[in-house]
C-alpha cells in the first residue's frame, strides 16, 4: 500500500484519470441496474477490472446508462476510477436501440482496450452488438479472466457442454476493444470504500434514429413465474420419505421458494402422495443437473443417485448417519430435516 493510496483512503486526494494518450486504453465496465440498485455482477466486474488494471497499468472506467449520481458514487466506492453517466431521463428504462447508441458512440470516441459486460439478459444482448459495431469480437459467458501480459490480451475461460469442461480462449492481439461478458457470481464482491473519490462525467447522446423497435407489452415478475422443468432447474430442493408427513413436505416447498428453486421428490415422496410423479428424480423419473441439489430426508438409494450424479453441489440432510446419500454429498448434515430447514430459511433471509 503506497502513500497515494493511503491518502486516497483518507479522502484527501481523489483518483485523477489522465485522459491524454494514444490508442486503445483502459478497462471499461458497463454498469447494469436492477430496479434502483446496481446489479451485483457490476460490482463483481469492478473488482476483477481493478485486478486486471493493476497488471496493465490502466484505469477502470465505468459507464452507467440511465442511472443517477448516487449510483455513480456507488461505482466509485466499489472501484471505478471514473464514471461516465448518461443521465438523460429517456434512458431510464432499458431499451436496446438507445442504449447501444449511447455506448457505441462513447466507445467509438474513447477507444477502450477492454470492455466488460455482465452475462445477463441485458449485457448478453448488448455486448455482441457492440462487438459488431466496433468491428471487434466478443467472448461470452466467461467464468475466468486472466491476462497474457506479453500481448496485452485477455484470456477467457468459457464453460462448454453445460459446464462439463471449459475452453480457454484468448483474443488475438489486433482485436480492439476486447469485449467480454462475465457470468454473475463468479468473481467476488469488492470492498465498499466510502472514502474513495473520483470524477463523474455527465455525458449526453443524440438519440435521433435510435428509437426502441421492440415494444414491451407486459412484464411478468418472479412471483408469477412458471415452474422450470426439472432437467433445466438451477436449484432443486428434493424431499424423501424421511420428511415424515405432508407438513414436513411443506417445509421443503418453503425452502425451495426461499431459494427460488424447484421442488422435487424421490420415489418415496411420490409413493406417499406428496408430489406428482413428474417431479420424481432418479431412475424412472427425471435426470437433473442443477448447480445446487438439496436432498431432504432422502436415503439416497442407487436409483436416486443415477438421477443426480451430474449435480454440481449436493447437500444432504438426513437423520441416519449411514444413509448412502452422504457418500455423494458435498455437504452432509446429520439431523432431522424438520428442525434444520426452518433454520436454513431463517439464515437465508438474514
Amino acid at each position: 500500500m503506497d502513500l497515494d493510496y493511503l491518502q486516497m483512503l483518507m479522502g484527501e486526494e481523489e483518483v485523477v484519470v489522465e485522459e491524454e494518450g494514444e490508442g486503445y486504453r483502459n478497462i471499461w465496465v458497463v454498469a447494469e441496474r436492477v430496479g434502483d440498485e446496481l446489479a451485483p455482477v457490476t460490482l463483481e466486474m469492478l473488482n476483477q477490472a481493478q485486478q486486471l488494471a493493476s497488471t496493465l497499468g490502466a484505469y477502470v472506467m465505468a459507464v452507467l446508462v440511465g442511472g443517477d449520481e448516487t449510483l455513480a458514487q456507488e461505482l466509485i466506492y466499489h472501484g471505478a476510477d471514473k464514471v461516465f453517466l448518461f443521465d438523460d431521463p429517456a434512458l431510464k428504462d432499458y431499451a436496446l436501440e438507445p442504449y447501444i447508441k449511447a455506448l457505441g458512440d462513447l466507445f467509438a470516441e474513447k477507444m477502450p482496450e477492454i470492455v466488460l459486460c455482465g452475462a445477463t439478459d441485458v449485457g448478453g444482448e448488448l455486448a455482441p452488438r457492440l462487438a459488431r459495431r466496433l468491428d471487434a469480437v466478443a467472448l461470452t459467458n466467461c467464468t475466468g479472466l486472466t491476462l497474457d501480459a506479453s500481448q496485452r490480451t485477455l484470456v477467457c475461460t468459457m464453460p462448454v457442454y453445460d459446464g462439463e469442461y471449459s475452453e480457454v480462449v484468448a483474443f488475438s492481439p489486433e482485436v480492439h476493444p476486447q469485449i467480454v461478458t462475465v457470468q454473475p457470481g463468479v468473481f467476488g464482491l469488492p470492498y465498499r470504500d466510502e472514502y474513495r473519490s473520483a470524477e463523474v462525467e455527465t455525458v449526453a447522446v443524440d438519440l435521433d434514429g435510435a428509437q426502441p423497435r421492440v415494444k414491451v407489452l407486459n412484464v411478468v415478475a418472479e412471483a408469477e413465474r412458471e415452474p422450470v422443468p426439472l432437467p433445466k432447474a438451477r436449484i432443486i430442493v428434493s424431499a424423501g420419505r424421511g420428511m415424515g408427513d405432508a407438513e414436513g413436505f411443506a417445509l421443503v416447498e418453503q425452502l425451495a421458494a426461499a431459494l427460488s428453486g424447484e421442488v422435487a421428490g424421490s420415489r418415496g415422496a411420490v409413493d406417499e402422495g406428496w408430489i406428482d410423479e413428474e417431479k420424481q428424480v432418479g431412475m424412472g423419473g427425471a435426470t437433473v443437473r442443477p448447480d445446487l441439489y438439496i436432498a431432504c430426508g432422502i436415503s439416497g438409494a442407487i436409483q436416486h443417485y443415477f438421477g443426480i450424479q451430474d449435480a454440481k453441489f449436493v447437500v444432504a440432510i438426513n437423520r441416519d448417519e449411514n444413509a448412502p446419500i452422504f457418500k455423494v454429498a458435498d455437504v452432509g448434515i446429520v439431523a432431522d430435516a424438520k428442525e434444520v430447514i426452518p433454520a436454513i430459511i431463517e439464515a437465508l433471509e438474514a
Partner: protein
Amino acid sequence: MRIIVPIRQILDPRGFTVSRRHERIFVNREEYIINPNDKNALEVALRIKDTGGAEVIAVAVGKPRVDDALREAMALGADAAYLLTDEALAQTDAAGAAKALAKAIEKIGDFDLIITGQETLDTGDAQLGPWLAEYFGIAQVTNVREATVSDGALRAKRDWGTGYAEVEAAPPVLLTVAPGANKPRYPHGGRIMAAYREWEVTTWGAEALGLDAADLEPLTEGRGRTFPPERTLGERLTGSPQDVAADLVQQLRLQHVIK
C-alpha cells in the same frame, strides 16, 4: 414470410466422456448433432410455418459433414438449406462464421425473421444472434420462449429477469431462442428419405460469399481446456440447527452456489 435459421453442428456429448481426473476428453463415438439450442430455434420457426405459413431456410457454416445437419433440418420441415463450406470457412472462428452467415443471408435476401439459438453448447458462444441483428441494423429479441406472427406483427414471450416479458415488433426481426424453450419435433420418415434422395443442399464457398482470407482470419485463439475439480468426499456439518444452517448458507455463498 421468409424465416432464416442459422444452425450449427456440434460433437454429440453422448459420444464422449469427460474425465476430470485425467483432465481429458475420451471420444467413444465421433457423432455430430444439431446444436440443441438451434433445434429449439428451428422448432420456433416451424411452428410459425405450421400456423401461418412460411418459407423456412436453414444455413450452416463448417466442414462438409455439416451437410447432415442441414438435411436433418429439411427432414424436420425446412424448405431449403445452404451449406457454407470450403477450406477457409471450415477453419474460421465465431466472428468469421458470423460474417459468412451474414453474407449468405444477404445473398438469400428478402427475409422477415432470422431465428437462431441463444448459445452453442460446444463453444459457449452466445454472440451470433445479436451480432447478425447489428449487421443488418434490425430489431432483436433475445432469450425467446415462444413466438407467433399475426397480421404481420411478431409477438414473443422472452425470459426477463426472474420472470418473462411479452413483446411485439415489426419484421424484420432477429430472435434468439432460449435453451430448452420447447420440445423439438421428430422428423417425418418420408421427409428423411426425401432429404437425402431428392432435395438439394446448396453449397457456397468463401468466394461466392465475397469473403477473402483476411475476412475469415480468426480473431481469437484457443489456449487449451480446463476441467472442474474432481468430486471429493463431502464435509459433515455438526452443531445446533442454527449453527448448521448458518454454516451451510455461508458455504453456499462462498462457493457461489447461491447469491
